[in-house]
């Protein structure tokens, strides 16, 4: 651990922020990405732009805590407050570089489920897609965020709400969705990439986490960076003091983090 302590979710936010490149148009949804975009645009990505499916376009953090993309601080002094057809059309034209997604379940090819899960003999109805399916289908790349819980890692998701890569290892080559597919998964224990076949592999473990702590949680033999020729498994960078201060400015009571 670093000199300053931080929560798992604070690290997830800064790891997610690092997935936004300067100049990106980022499609931002609910929860942690609301904070991650604000961190990114305040640090390494000052020329990033955020688009939100409700119709909000922003180039700067909100001056106030936000529960949702439509909270008034997110509308105040926005670049534009437009509508969904406008935002989704930008996505469909291929103008969104990176989109953020969450899920209750993920499979080894990055397919996400937010619709139905099975728990014992009971089927549990979840909230549904929202804009997640659209982002998964059409963004150039997607970054997936979820708590690190073994029940979320499934050989096959009950329902593929938001498509990742083809389950035959052909990536997005023959996949019907026009976008590029997932590029990273960040959990509360580790960060992952996707190899050329579209399969998930372990890229880095968060400070204090062992590789086996992560691989044991998967119902399949999880590849690591070594296995796919992507160097070695590293340690996820801790939030810098500047990043932590920003996270706590944007989420002052730790509601999301």
């Amino acid at each position, binding site marked *: 651990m670093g000199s300053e302590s931080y929560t798992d979710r604070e690290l997830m936010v800064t790891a997610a922020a690092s997935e936004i490149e300067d100049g990106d148009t980022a499609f931002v949804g609910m929860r942690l990405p609301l904070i991650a975009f604000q961190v990114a645009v305040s640090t390494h990505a000052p020329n990033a732009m955020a688009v939100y499916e409700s119709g909000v376009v922003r180039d700067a953090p909100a001056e106030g805590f936000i*529960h949702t993309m*439509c909270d008034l601080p997110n509308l105040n002094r926005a670049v534009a407050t437009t*509508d969904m057809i406008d935002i989704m059309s930008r*996505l*469909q034209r291929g103008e969104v570089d990176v989109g953020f997604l969450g899920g209750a379940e993920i499979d080894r090819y990055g397919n996400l489920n937010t619709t139905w899960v099975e728990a014992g003999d009971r089927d549990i109805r979840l909230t549904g897609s929202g*804009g997640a399916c659209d982002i998964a289908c059409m963004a150039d790349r997607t970054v997936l965020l979820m708590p690190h819980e073994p029940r979320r890692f499934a050989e096959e998701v009950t329902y*593929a*709400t938001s498509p990742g890569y083809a389950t035959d290892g052909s990536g997005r080559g023959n996949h019907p969705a026009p976008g590029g597919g997932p590029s990273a998964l960040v959990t509360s224990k580790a960060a992952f990439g996707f190899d050329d076949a579209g399969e998930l592999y372990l890229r880095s473990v968060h400070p204090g986490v062992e590789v086996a702590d992560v691989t044991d949680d998967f119902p399949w033999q999880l590849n690591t960076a070594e296995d796919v020729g992507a160097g070695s498994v590293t340690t996820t960078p801790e939030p810098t003091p500047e990043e932590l201060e920003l996270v706590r400015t944007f989420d002052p009571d730790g509601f999301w983090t």
Partner: protein
Amino acid sequence: MSARTESLDDAVARIDDGSSIATGLALEHAIPFAAGHELLRQGRSGLTLIGPISDLLFDQLIGGNAVSGVRAAWAGNVSAGTGYRFRKAVEDGTVEIEDHSNFSIALALQAGSMGVPYLPTKSLLGSDILEHSDLFVTTTDPFTDERIVLVPAIEPDWAIVHVQRASPDGDAHFWGNSGIIDPAVGAAENVLVTAEEVVDPEVIKSDPSRVAITRDQVTSVVECPFGAHPSPVAGRYNRDNEYFLEYARRTDTREAFEEWADEWVYGVDDREEYAALVERELSITDPTVAAEVEYGQ
């Protein structure tokens, strides 16, 4: 045709049992909760709700037994996640759900508003939303030979929209993000506008670029201050975040929901009584005033 300016209960009384209603169209912004609660007080049933994401209002209407179907991309509580009454109703089969993505519901209403039978999209391809659906059609684009999904038009019986201000005739100003208000208003057979303020028509005519809805589309106009609480309204009041968290804590069983609804829906006669229940400070403390806009000749 001009709209009628009338009371909320008279306006809502025009909506029949079994109607399809598009609402919550600006997503978490300006959700017509007052009109929704009046539907519950009047005991409406068999409604089909249409929307993109629904931040709580669909859950409340389901909890109050007003709903038999939902055509939407997401239903729950954006602050807390799960909407317990929605979840239980879908699991029990008492509410039928037609799963959409946000874009597919937007395109369905856009097709309705354009008077065309469907619109094509590159979304949904590879998703179980498409795979498990009887609604969408996957075909080959005749121009490019690529796979394309056809989203059939939806034409709701009603759209309910909350705006900042409207004239008595039904012309309405709306600002802030608008989600799918435009396509839903265009597609719906009837539109109920609830407004923070009913103003002189000259106010609306002074800024025609800000008009989101015109009178020919509107059946009723209702002056309904605070009519979107607990959702926020640009320039009027902030989102009541604590309300959403309290709702999640208090509605995980049917009995708990009924107790909650007795306090917040059935226990108040109108929006004035309702407003008295809200103790939190939601007013705008740091207003941004737009630069003056000139028209003229």
